[in-house]
C-alpha cells in the first residue's frame, strides 16, 4: 500500500461535496470536498505500489482538458484501472454540480 499526494492549479471551490465509488475489487472511493481557491489537492491511498507516474499522467490528462474546481480530493483505491479512475472522477465532478 502507498500514499501519494498531488497538487494542480484550479478555479473556485464548489459549494457541495460528493462521495462516489467503493473500496471494492477493481474499484475506488473518491471523496470530494471544497478546497482553497486556486488549488486542487489530491491524496491517494492505493493498494498498488509503484504507480505514482500513472496517477500523475491520468490527472494531468484529465485536468488539461478543463480547469478543475478547487477541491480536496481523497482517494481510497483498491486496484482500479485508469479507465475506472477517470469515470469515478468524472462522476464525482458531476455529482458536485447537483448539490
Amino acid at each position, binding site marked *: *500500500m502507498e500514499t501519494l499526494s498531488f497538487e494542480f492549479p484550479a478555479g473556485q471551490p464548489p459549494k457541495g461535496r460528493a*462521495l462516489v465509488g467503493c473500496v471494492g475489487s477493481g474499484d475506488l472511493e473518491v471523496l470530494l470536498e471544497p478546497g482553497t481557491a486556486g488549488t486542487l489537492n489530491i491524496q491517494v491511498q492505493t493498494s498498488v505500489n509503484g504507480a505514482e507516474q500513472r496517477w500523475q499522467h491520468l490527472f494531468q490528462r484529465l485536468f488539461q482538458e478543463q480547469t478543475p474546481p478547487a477541491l480536496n480530493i481523497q482517494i481510497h483505491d483498491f486496484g482500479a484501472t485508469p479507465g475506472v479512475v477517470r469515470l469515478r472522477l468524472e462522476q464525482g465532478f458531476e455529482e458536485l454540480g447537483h448539490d
Partner: protein
Amino acid sequence: MTDLLNRHSFVELGARQRAKALLDAGSYRELIDPFQRVMSPWLSRQGVVPQADDGVVIAKGTLDGLPVVIAAIEGNFQGGSLGEVGGAKIAGALELAAEDNRNGIPTRAVLLLETGGVRLQEANLGLAAIADIHAAIVDLRQYQPVIGVVAGSVGCFGGMSIAAGLCSYLLVTREARLGLNGPQVIEQEAGLEEYDSRDRPFIWSLTGGEQRFNSGLADRYVADDVAQIRQQISELLQQGLPATQRSRQADYYLARLAELDAAPQIEPATVRDLYQGERS
C-alpha cells in the same frame, strides 16, 4: 419481460443506496457520515486500504412514517467484514434506538446484512463489537422489532449470522445465503467430498434464502426488487413484536437436532423436514 424491465434490483445497490431506497423520500439522515472519516485505525497499518465509512452506513429516517434506524453493511468492502469501527457504529445505533424507546420514541431497526462476519485483521476488537451488536439487538427487540435483511450476494456468516438469528424477523431473497460458517471454511474442515464450496447449486440448496425460508429460519422470502422488499419490511415493522422470538425457541430446535442421523450426507429436504417438523 416487462416484469423484468420494471424490476429494480436491490442486490445490485450499494449499502448507502439501499438505505436511501428504503427510507421515505427526504427523511434520510446519515450518522457518522464518511466525511467525518471515522475509519479503521488497523487496516492501514497492515497494508490494507481503508474506506471512509469503514463499510457501514448508519441512517435515520422514517419508513412509511415510522421512525427507523438502518444499519447497512457494504459487502463489496472487505467482504462486509466487521471491525472495531463498523461494529461499534452498528452497536451504537442499536443502543441509541433502545434509548429512544425508553424516552418514548418508538425507533425500530433494520439491519442490511452482507457480511462474512468478523474482520480477521481486527480480530478480538471485531469479535467484541459483534458481541455488543448481539446484546443491543436483544435489548432493542423488547420494545420494537429489529428486522434483519439478507439480500445477497455476499450473504451473512460468522458472528453476524447469530445477529441475524437474534432479529425479531428475518427477510431473505433467493440470492441470500445464511450460515454460521462460510462454504470455504466448511470445505476446509469437512473435506471436498462432503462439501464442495465451488458447487453453487449445492451450496444454495443448503444455505440459500429459499432453503432457509422453507426450513422456518427466515420469515419472508422476497424477490430481488426494491419495491417488494420495502413493502415487506414495512409490513413487518407494522406487525410489531413476534409472539415468540425465534432465538427463544432454542429448546425446540435442539430437540429436533437431537433426532438427526448425521451419518448419511444430508439432503436439503431432510433439513426442511427436521426444522419444520409437525409445522410443515
